[in-house]
């Protein structure tokens, strides 16, 4: 597949920029030239792309939590506390900021001050602005990334990149379809092309910004070929805008072979496709998310889910793993619970870092399968876009060719139905309008029928519901209730 999307021109980028910086008062403090100098003076150990690259070279798996609270001082304390165990730090942004509701976020800050605890589910970076955010960067000794879920993250990117954050999560599909209801893809892709261009501009000027599309999407039974396809698309879009450090992600599903195959095929195929498109000047790393769906509320059981995610991440040799906590099912974790998740993960990753990956027929088959599915789907998307990836994506979602299960967006068809097979791998029960080669689809169906036979029921919505609850109720496959 070859795409013809182009880089945003310098003029139109800077024109748009002017508007963006006006959308909230803190925008006026952004000075990109000064910011680039600031980045260049950061020590290597605080630069995301450097730390990721080194880990990848050493086949290491780094660990990173999610964390963000409303108040600046507390947010800094939180990160300082977590860096004792974490290799990479996050700053998770609150849900109002994600919707560009800065007035609501402002209220949230005030109410949090009054309540003496965070009433926001993250750190409202835009409201704080550049200097307070630099405070975050300067108070810790590890690289910090912005993690969020924002369809229009232009201002957030301007402010946080200017503040010295060296990595920015998201993409025009992955931060729209699972996170928004009514944002047109045309808009979110444009807005994210802006973000990529901004990151590209920094990078071209010697301040490399790592970009990480959000792999897990809705985190709920998303088949690997869907999420890998979207990850590669977002990777292509980002590289086209001059991004040089890209981390592609995937959310654990629970079947070891499928999960390892997903990470391996993601990295291999992304490299192939980037190069086919004449893109060579980049560093590609991977991120594995511990299970992103519903967690068990018992903390001991949650530890097992966390540990299995850590084990799979290490065996897949993902460059980093995003860590859940024993509080996952209940609410945003305390810093102590967050550290617990990190410690369990670190122990596991370290114990497994010394182990080689086994090569089995099953694994090789699964890798081949996912690559084949992704290539096929990518070709359909480019075709329908007449070679233009952005147009292809928009039309593909419209037609249901790209389809993410359980997504809240009205621009997502929601016709594809996944269920687990008898080994817990996620397969396609009904592709909806997603194009799949007939023999591939029948492989999926066969796998599901095998499970159905064993469970003595026909695969239907109830099977899917059982799968949704399965891990939180203590297993992987949602067996019929007795």
């Amino acid at each position, binding site marked *: 597949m070859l795409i013809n999307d182009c880089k945003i021109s310098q003029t139109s980028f800077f024109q748009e920029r002017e508007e963006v910086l006006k959308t909230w008062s803190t925008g006026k403090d952004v000075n990109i030239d000064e910011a680039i100098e600031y980045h260049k003076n950061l020590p290597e150990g605080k630069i995301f792309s450097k730390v990721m690259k080194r880990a990848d070279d050493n086949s290491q798996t780094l660990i990173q939590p999610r964390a963000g609270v409303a108040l600046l001082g507390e947010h800094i304390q939180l990160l300082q506390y977590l860096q004792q165990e974490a290799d990479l730090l996050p700053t998770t942004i*609150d849900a109002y900021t994600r919707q560009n509701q800065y007035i609501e976020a402002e209220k949230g800050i005030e109410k949090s001050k009054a309540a003496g605890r965070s009433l*926001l589910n993250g750190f409202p970076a835009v409201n704080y602005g550049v200097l307070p955010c630099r405070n975050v960067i300067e108070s810790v000794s590890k690289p910090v990334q912005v993690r969020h879920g924002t369809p229009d993250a232009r201002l957030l990117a301007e402010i946080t990149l200017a503040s010295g954050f060296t990595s920015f999560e998201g993409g025009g599909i992955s931060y729209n379809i699972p996170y928004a209801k009514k944002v047109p893809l045309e808009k979110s892709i444009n807005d994210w092309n802006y973000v990529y261009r901004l990151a590209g501009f920094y990078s071209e000027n010697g301040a490399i910004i790592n970009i990480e599309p959000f792999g897990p999407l809705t985190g709920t039974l998303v088949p690997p070929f869907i999420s890998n396809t979207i990850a590669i698309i977002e990777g292509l879009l980002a590289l086209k805008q001059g991004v040089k450090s890209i981390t592609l992600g995937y959310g654990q599903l629970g079947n070891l072979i499928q999960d390892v195959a997903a990470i391996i095929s993601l990295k291999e195929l992304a490299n192939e496709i980037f190069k086919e498109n004449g893109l060579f000047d980049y560093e590609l790393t991977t991120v594995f998310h511990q299970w992103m769906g519903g967690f068990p509320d018992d903390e001991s059981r949650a530890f097992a889910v966390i540990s299995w995610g850590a084990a799979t991440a290490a065996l897949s040799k993902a460059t980093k793993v995003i860590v859940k906590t024993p509080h996952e099912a209940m609410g945003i974790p305390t810093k102590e619970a967050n550290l617990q998740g990190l410690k369990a993960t670190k122990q596991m990753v370290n114990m497994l870092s010394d182990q080689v990956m086994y090569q089995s027929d099953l694994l090789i088959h699964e890798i081949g399968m996912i690559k084949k599915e992704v290539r096929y789907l990518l070709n359909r998307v480019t075709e329908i876009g007449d070679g233009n990836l952005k147009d292809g994506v928009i039309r593909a979602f419209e037609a249901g060719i790209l389809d993410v299960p359980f997504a809240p967006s009205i621009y997502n068809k929601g016709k594809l139905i996944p269920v687990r097979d008898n080994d817990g791998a996620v397969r396609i029960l009904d592709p909806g309008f997603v194009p799949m080669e007939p023999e591939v689809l029948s492989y999926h169906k066969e796998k599901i029928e095998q499970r159905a036979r064993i469970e003595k029921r026909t695969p239907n919505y109830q099977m899917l519901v059982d799968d949704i609850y399965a891990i939180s109720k203590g297993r992987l496959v949602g067996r019929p209730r007795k």
Partner: protein
Amino acid sequence: MHTIVLGVIGSDCHAVGNKILEKVFSDAGFKVVNLGVMVSQDEFINAAIETNAKAILVSSLYGQGELDCEGLREKCIERGLDKIILYVGGNLVVGKQDFDYVEKKFKDMGFDRVFKPDVDLIEVTKLLKDDIEQRFGNKDSK
């Protein structure tokens, strides 16, 4: 058949539970008006008025429910929904907090019942039937 309005309040995008709630309450014989995710207080109230609903079932998962739900009861009364039943469920506040505290907080806001994420939904459908009959009488009137 009782009509109920369902939705996830505020800027909350968690869609999975919402789809399951729709299914369970439909199967239990309710007429479900599902507004999906990211629903404002006004959208809830408009839909309830339009469809002559007996209850509004609010979900909040993302932690900011405490901020989003404030004033819903008052607004319902303002708009003439003086008898409407208000349920709320999910991960209602930020963090793992004592449920008694959470329940009291939301009851004080005017919710009739408050539910944890792991509540048995079949039980809730029964509770809701009882609550509706008690508040509106056994007939299908508002």
